[in-house]
Every structure is written in C-alpha cells, then in structure tokens.
C-alpha cells in the first residue's frame, strides 16, 4: 500500500525539491497526482469548469516561475489546496462591477462550498434519491461546516491540513466536524420519516 499519508507526504516533498532544482517532470507528476482532486475541490465553489482549469494551470505555472523564491511547504497537498482556494477567491472577486465590501459578496468572504451531486446519473433508484437528499442536507449546513466535511471525508485531508487550507485552528476544525455531524444526524432522522418520493416505473 503506497497510499499511506506519510508515504505520500515524503513523495510530495521529494517532488517539490526536484522541481525547485528545475525538473519539469516533477511538476508534471505533482499535477498528475493532484489535478483531479483540485478540480473537484474548485467545483464546490464555482461551476465553470474552463475557468477552474485555467486557475489550476496558472497555479502550477506560478509555482514553477517562483520556485526559487517560494519556501518549501511542509505539506504540499495542503499548500496546493489553500493556494487554489485563494486563487479562485481572488479571481471571482476581481469582477469589479458594483463590488463593494457591504454588498452581497461580503457574506462570501470565505467561499461557498455548494454540493450538486449528479444524482440522476446513479442507476439504483433508491440510492439516487438518497444522494439527492444528502446533497440537499449538506447544503443546509453552515458553509464552514460544509467545507470541513468535504475536505475531511471526500479529500481525506488531516485535521492539520484542513486547518492550513482554511486558515483556522486545528481545534476549530474538530469543533466544526463535530457540529456538522450533530446537524446531519438530526436531519437524516427527519428525512427517514418523511421520505416523500416514491417512484416506480411501469413499462407496459
């Protein structure tokens, strides 16, 4: 099993050292490892796939161009996630028309994680419906709880990594995860009772 977090971390640090020395293939390897996760993460904030792909490409090109001056991150994965997060935020808020601090954007002064599962692509009817519902429940959570849950359970980031990505303390991360599950559990219970859609198909 090469998928253990520690092995990954030392592999990443090695790749980083290589790219600082000017090895383009090391940058390519990091891209191959993290591109899909980064794209999925970005999609939680912004649905425009082309925009996200540009952001990710620029992120890697900037790392390359600034490789001599950047200090090596202790955790490459967390560094990439937090850089992409900042980048999307900056790009989105560059839209200058009417933007001012107390406008509707102020509440977005982190970013909004929004789940929109493609539940209709899931073949199993009951699972599709449950997934749609879960997406809805996740979106009802306060935005920081949403992001913490996503980073921990989908992206498998550790508590310290999440703290770094979201610029909050590790203790806050634990609190948010705890709260999110308290919230979710309450809501799952009520959903189970009031599952309101029963769908059957008759092909005559």
């Amino acid at each position, binding site marked *: 099993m090469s*998928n253990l977090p520690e092995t990954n971390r030392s592999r990443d640090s090695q790749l980083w050292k290589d790219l600082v020395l000017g090895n*383009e293939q090391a*940058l*390519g390897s990091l*891209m191959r490892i993290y*591109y*899909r996760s980064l*794209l*999925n993460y970005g999609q939680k*904030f*912004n649905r*425009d796939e082309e*925009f996200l792909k540009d952001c990710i*490409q*620029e992120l*890697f*090109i900037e790392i390359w*161009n600034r490789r001599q001056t950047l200090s090596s991150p202790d955790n490459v994965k967390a560094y990439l996630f937090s850089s992409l997060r900042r980048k999307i935020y900056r790009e*989105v808020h*560059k839209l*200058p*028309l009417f933007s*001012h*601090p107390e*406008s*509707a954007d102020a*509440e*977005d002064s982190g970013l*909004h994680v*929004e*789940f*929109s*599962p*493609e*539940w*209709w*692509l899931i073949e199993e009817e*009951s*699972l599709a419906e*449950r*997934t*749609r519902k*879960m*997406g809805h429940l*996740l979106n009802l959570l306060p935005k920081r709880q949403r992001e913490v*849950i996503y980073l921990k*359970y*989908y992206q*498998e980031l550790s508590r310290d990594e999440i703290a770094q990505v979201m610029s909050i303390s590790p203790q806050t991360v634990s609190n948010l995860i705890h709260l999110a*599950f308290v919230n979710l*559990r309450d809501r*799952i219970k009520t959903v189970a009772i009031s599952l*309101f*859609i*029963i*769908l*059957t*198909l008759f*092909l*005559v």
Partner: protein
Amino acid sequence: MTDYRKFIVEDFLTDPLFRAWVLNGDAQATDFWQHWLAGNPDRSAMVEDARALLLAMAEKRQMLSDDELDTIVEGTLGKLSSNTETGQPTVRRMYLVWARVAAAVLVVAGLGWLVQKFPLGASFKAISTTSSPSEIRVERTNDTDRPMTVLLGDKSTVILQPGSRLSFSSALEKEPRRIVYLDGEAFFDVVKDPAHPFFVYSNQLITRVLGTSFRVVAYEREKQASVSVLTGKVTVFTKKDLEKMDRIAIRPGAGGLVLSPNEQVTFSQNKARFTKSRIQGLANLYHPPRFSFDETPVADVFSALEKAYGIDIEYEPEKLDGYRLTATFSEMSLHDELHLICRIIKGTYHIEEGRVIIETDR
C-alpha cells in the same frame, strides 16, 4: 479484521474498503460489501446513508480520463519551456484583468447613457432593445390570469405574475452577467454562480444577486417598486445610483442597499428613497405545486406540468408511448421533476427560448 458492526456513518466514510466500493466501484470491494450487507441487514440504512453522503460530495461521476489529464499536463509543461524567468503567464494575466475592467466600464457607461436618455420611469421597451443587435432576445408576457413559470437557460426559474413582462437574452447562461428586464411582478429563484452575477432591471430599481430567491414588484405605470428576499442576499440600486457611479467611475462602497432573507425594500419615486421593512409569508406565496400520479401516461404528466407552471413542453408523443409514471412530487422544483421524468424515459431536456425541449433516442 475490522468489525464493521461497530461502525457509525463517519467510520464508513474513511474506511478504504468502503471508499473503494462507493467511489471506484472496485470489484472485490463491491463483492465484499454485498456479502456483508446480506449478513447484516440491520446495518443497511446506515451503510446507505454513508454511501449517499460520499456520492453527494463526489458529484462529477465522469471525471477526466487519463488521456485528457495527460494532454493538460503536457500543455502546461509546454508553456513552461517557452517562458523566461518572469514568465508569460503574468503578462497574460494583466491583459485579462484589463479586458475585464474595460468590459465593466463599458457596461456602466452604457447604463449611464441610458439613464440620461431615459430618465426615471424610462420605457421598458427602450431599455430592453438596447442590447447588441446580434443578440436574440426572448420576451415573455403573462396575459393569462394565473402565475406563469419562465425557465431561463441557466436553470434559474422565474414565476411571472399576470400582466407582467420579462425579457432576456436567449443565450443568458453564456453571458458574463445574466441580465433580465422586468415590467411587473415576478419571483426569482436564481441558480448560484458567483462568476456570473444575475441582474434584474426594472422600473427605477436594479437588483443584483449571486444566487438566491426573491421577489420584485416594479410596474412601469406605478411610482412605487419593491424587492423582497426569501433566501440569500441581494443588493438593490436605483437607476440614479448607477448614474452617479458612472460619473465617479466604479468606486467601491457607492450606492446599493443589501437585503437579507425576509427583508423588503420599497422605493417610491416621489420621495426618491428606500424604505426597508420585514415581511413574512413569502415562502407560502410561492409554494411549488404538488402532483400525484398513478400509472399516468408520461404525455399526461407533461400536460399537468404545462398547466401548473404555465410553460410549453415539446416532445415527440410517439416516443413516449407505453411510459407510465407513478409518483408524488412535493417540495420539488420543476427542474428536479424534469430530471426525474427524463431519467425514466431515457431522455434529456434543455431550455430553448423559455420552452422545455424533451429529447429521447428511443
């Protein structure tokens, strides 16, 4: 051996064997879990919850293929070698930023001109025809006596009240700013997309949103207009504000009033000012209709939706022969309902000039 009977939802989410099954459809893992569930039926609800949670977070089921990823990586590395130390991307970046600022200034300048040319109470028609000539505009007028649903290409929904009129670009979803023009009263449920803010232009007021649901009442013939918010936040400007903003360029902090859920702002032309108040019951006013079908032919289901929402649905009736639906729809949006039906008839749908077009390939 892990004792999965002791697991709660969170534990499943982080279990490698569980993830291999749910996220990658790994054959061995699938086999294991099918057996395990057969032997532990009392745990199935919890396992299904955990499964749905992971899937809800995954969303994109068809991810980039390895080939696509290779192309992207090669493309990026290609850009590196042609660069010097400071690099081309920075330069391109600047250019992009400038292009965006220029576009924004143009829009605001354009509006300023409009305000001068058509002062407060300007004709709705005059404003709505000023967009670029190549653009095809769609206009919907509700001359029935019941609310009418208008679907926009970005999957936002508008409930247009009798005697009201809405106009928008037929390629709204592709534009940097989603702009619609309203004369009358409408309830908007806007799909969130921070990169493409949504604007409602109406008599005296301009409402800007990122993604939320709210109501605008602004008849051209009346001297009062209001905006009420159900969810999310919106910013309301008067046309005068825009005129000022034009003069002082785009200064942050200029004009605009932010509304939160259950707040309403009324603007009266005589006093030329905003009055903010609290409202309740907006949700009840715009409750989605409820449907119950029992072995109903799908064509009849479409008729029911057409009638309830006041929309047109186009499809080929012969392709729907034999499909029947038994279902209860409640608290569901029209888009969710269409998705479900399309899934059953193995088709897809899209919005064209406010009409729903159903495509099946049977």
